[in-house]
């Protein structure tokens, strides 16, 4: 196994482009090292990107948007004085992953690029309209989060490409987001269903909405019918029922050790309603 710790993303990209066999990028390592230890994936090339300058930074830009470094950890996001005020759903989703120890290592980028359909932060990011910068041999490109995973353990990144930054839009006025997941326990588990909701209000009326589902299909889903169900409403019971129906209808889950098709389909609707109510309350400036 070859281990590299490049000083720039361009160098990291070049190393990956020229590597043979299995290549993995190492940030927090909470998936890569576990897979290595359990012999699921034994990389030939391991490229540690933590030594690249600025990768742990969390920056609020002049326009109110945020740039999150690829090695910024869940703990750093949770402890940031302002990020959680703008995007509580994204921060809470990240904070749900793993234990306190894992929070000290785990990153948004790693959670995204691991390609798990059950990744907690990904529906929250998709709902928030997060994009990532991808650096590759041909230069850089901006990609929406929901375009990165293509199936369990698979991404749209091609050989030599890696995510080099995460961009969260400016929160703006009268907006709120929320993420809820279902697990059978209270901690230390993988989402059986995850739902991210992000919306904006004009008075009491929803004017913009993005609803994203996790763990109910091979990839994260950004469900337009869910958004349509609540846009123009005051999130009354009829709108919530329509939202739940649209969420359930969008599900394409599997039966496995973590849950059944029927359960995931039903609970996706339940959580969509609950998450929407929290996002709505937050948009109104209420505690939720």
């Amino acid at each position, binding site marked *: 196994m070859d281990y590299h710790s490049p000083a720039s993303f361009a160098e990291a990209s070049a190393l990956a482009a020229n590597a043979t066999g299995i290549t993995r990028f190492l940030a927090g390592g909470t998936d890569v090292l576990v897979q290595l230890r*359990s012999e699921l994936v034994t990389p030939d090339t391991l490229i540690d990107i933590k030594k690249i300058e600025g990768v742990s930074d969390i920056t609020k830009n002049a326009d109110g948007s945020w740039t999150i470094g690829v090695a910024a950890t869940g703990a750093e996001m949770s402890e940031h004085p302002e990020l959680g005020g703008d995007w509580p759903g994204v921060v809470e989703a990240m904070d749900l992953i793993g234990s306190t120890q894992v929070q000290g290592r785990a990153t948004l980028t790693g959670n995204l690029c691991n390609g798990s359909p059950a990744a907690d932060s990904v529906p929250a990011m998709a709902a928030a309209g997060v994009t990532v910068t991808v650096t590759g041999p041909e230069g850089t490109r901006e990609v929406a989060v929901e375009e990165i995973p293509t199936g369990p353990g698979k991404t749209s990144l091609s050989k030599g490409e890696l995510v080099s930054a995460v961009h969260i839009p400016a929160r703006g006025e009268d907006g709120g987001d929320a993420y809820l997941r279902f697990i*059978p326990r209270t*901690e230390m588990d993988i989402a059986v269903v995850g739902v991210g909701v992000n919306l904006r209000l004009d008075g009491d009326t929803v004017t913009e909405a993005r609803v994203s589902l996790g763990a109910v299909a091979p990839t994260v889903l950004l469900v337009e019918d869910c958004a349509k169900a609540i846009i123009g409403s005051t999130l009354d019971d009829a709108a919530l029922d329509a939202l739940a129906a649209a969420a359930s209808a969008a599900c394409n889950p599997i039966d*496995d050790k973590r849950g*059944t098709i*029927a359960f995931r389909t039903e609970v996706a609707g339940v959580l969509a309603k609950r998450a929407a109510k929290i996002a709505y309350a937050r948009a109104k400036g209420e505690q939720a």
Partner: protein
Amino acid sequence: MALDDRKSEFTFVGTRPNRPDGLDKVTGRAKFGADMSAPGMLHGAILRSPHAHARIVKIDTSKAEAHKDVKAVVTRADFADVPFKPGLEGEFWNVLENVMAGEKALYDGHAVAAVAATSALAARDALKLIEVEYEVLPHVTDVDKAMASDAPVIREGAADYSVPEGMHPNVVRYHESGHGDVEAGFAEADLVIEDSFVTEATHQGYIEPHACLGMLGNDGKGELWCTTQGHWIAQKTCAALLGIETSQLRVTASEIGGGFGGKTTVFIEPVALALSRKANRPVKLVMTRSEVFRATGPTSSASMDIKIGMKKDGTISAAQGVFRLQGGAFPGAPGDMTAMCAFAPYNLTNVKQVGYDVMANRPKQAAYRAPGAPMGAFAVESVIDELCKKLDLDPVDVRLKNAAYEGTKASYGPRYERIGLVETLEAAKAHPHYSAPLKPGQGRGISCGFWFNHGGETSVSLSLSEDGSAQLMVGTPDIGGSRASMALMAAEVLGIPYENIRVTIADTATLGYNDVSHGSRVTYASGLATIKAANHAVEKLCERAAASWGIPTDAVKWENGCAVPSGPNAGDFDPRPLADITAHMGSTGGPISGHFEATPEGAGVSFGTHIVDAEVDPETGKTAITRYTVVQDAGKAIHPTYVEGQYQGGAAQGIGWALNEEYIYGEDGRLQNSIFLDYRIPVASDLPMIDTVIVEVPNPGHPFGVRGVGETGIVPPLAAIANAVSHAAGVRMRQLPMSPPRILAALKDNG
């Protein structure tokens, strides 16, 4: 029975000092199974079957043997040829067959070969060089399917004499017991409920994986360090499996990171010794968590049919149960225990119980706290709860009305001596929890539970030092704070402070045979032996004092740590403290020690009653346990904190078993969830503070009245939680675990 001869006033017993091993454990100084190393040590690794059932056509180890870092490879051929005998008689054969597969791999994870190499990584990589040709066979993992006529046969001829003719060869033992006439009893009932229940296998979930360091020379002399609940059984079994003399293998028990019954047998220990014998070097073997799940003993899974008749006043007129337990690809599933415990809390005129021990393509079941009892209690206490509901009766009152007491003929045969079930029910009824209001969406469940408890072969030695301190050697690994309890009991007899007594778990070369730490026997049996060994030393102390005073020994008594004249007629001498006598022991007759060994028979059965509140989310089926109270008879709590710990631990493990823990097998017969991420034991935030009430109805069979407390605490939770959840959800739950998908599906079915 009068208890006048029993000590009831205590100085040290009943206090709560820190455990002697506590500091070592919190500072990392304690040495567990994987913490021992030796010069020249090799690392072992085990190749395991990926198939649930397969004939092993050929194993080619030549490439692994040729690897430069590999020093030994073993297969079944490297073990002693223990002959196969049917049923339980063949337990050595069963263990050998489990430790290393013979003609067939019998479950996913069954060991088929092992290597020892110069590093753990090299050993792991070398496994990939071993080529095994399998002929995959049909498999079965479900207990009911394993009994069906078309089920694949795990092994012909494994059934013992007890199995009725015409049963499938996978049914290997049969139990039937009871008394009275159940049909007549059902005819007398105002309401009869008949229902069926199933439970999935669960793992003990000890945090420390199996680990050992073995050394065995070609001269047949060896040493073994391992994490175990019983090093003498490890010694005996390893010696048999390797064809060496028992006494030539010295076994030392490490500190143990949990066992709960699962470390009462051997898995990797004979393999490490076989590798060591071949390589002529010490070999360390440490299981991964996945190996622990796939290849060490979970509980049995169970399928049960219950029929109970009740009169309008709550009297149970008849009770009958059929209990089918699947215990993996070997005899041993405790269908008999399940049957005998299921109705044991009740004073029944008419009762009948039948138990089946069934084999399937799963790992060999191992003991797990009161093996077999929790499943039976789940089924029986669910039906009693349903009867109470339908007849509009209070569930505690109904249990009080039917509760067994001293003299009751137990459902499994004998008459009870003094027992404390009624006292636990009365304490439960009086507890504020039982009358506390419930919120909407919450339900309350109660259940009783029973366990036999056990005595077992026991040997204890105590020796005094010149400075008046004492060393106590016991042979039962400390799985629940027993060193503290032993020191308290010795302190009570000797009259010296707790801190002045050091308790050691002696190795197999330094003490007589001791049975495993199981059957809730340690505080009872090793405790009894400790008291008697201390009394033995006290006799000698009194002899020395008598000699120094020139009076007969029977004119001296032991009081508050001193020899004193037994009365005014004995003479007027100043008390001689223990340290004063030991200071001169070298010149007054030599070292002073005490010893006791026996197989005590008065363990004293144990009962508990649990109260549980559960809240079910009707939209997701998720359950939260909001309040939990354990009431259990301890006989006499030697160290109340560790008694409470046992109660809370039983409840915590029961919550896991009831709600989320289960072995999940795929269509291919392979275990799907062999990591803690997907095998869902409760995390701390899943548990409420578990309240405890220690009831003390002294056990006539122990000098201080002790009853074992380790196992009974896991018997009531499954039923109590199922009753609480069923009330909260408004639908009877008949299958464990009550995972959210199962509860949501039940809610949907219920409209």
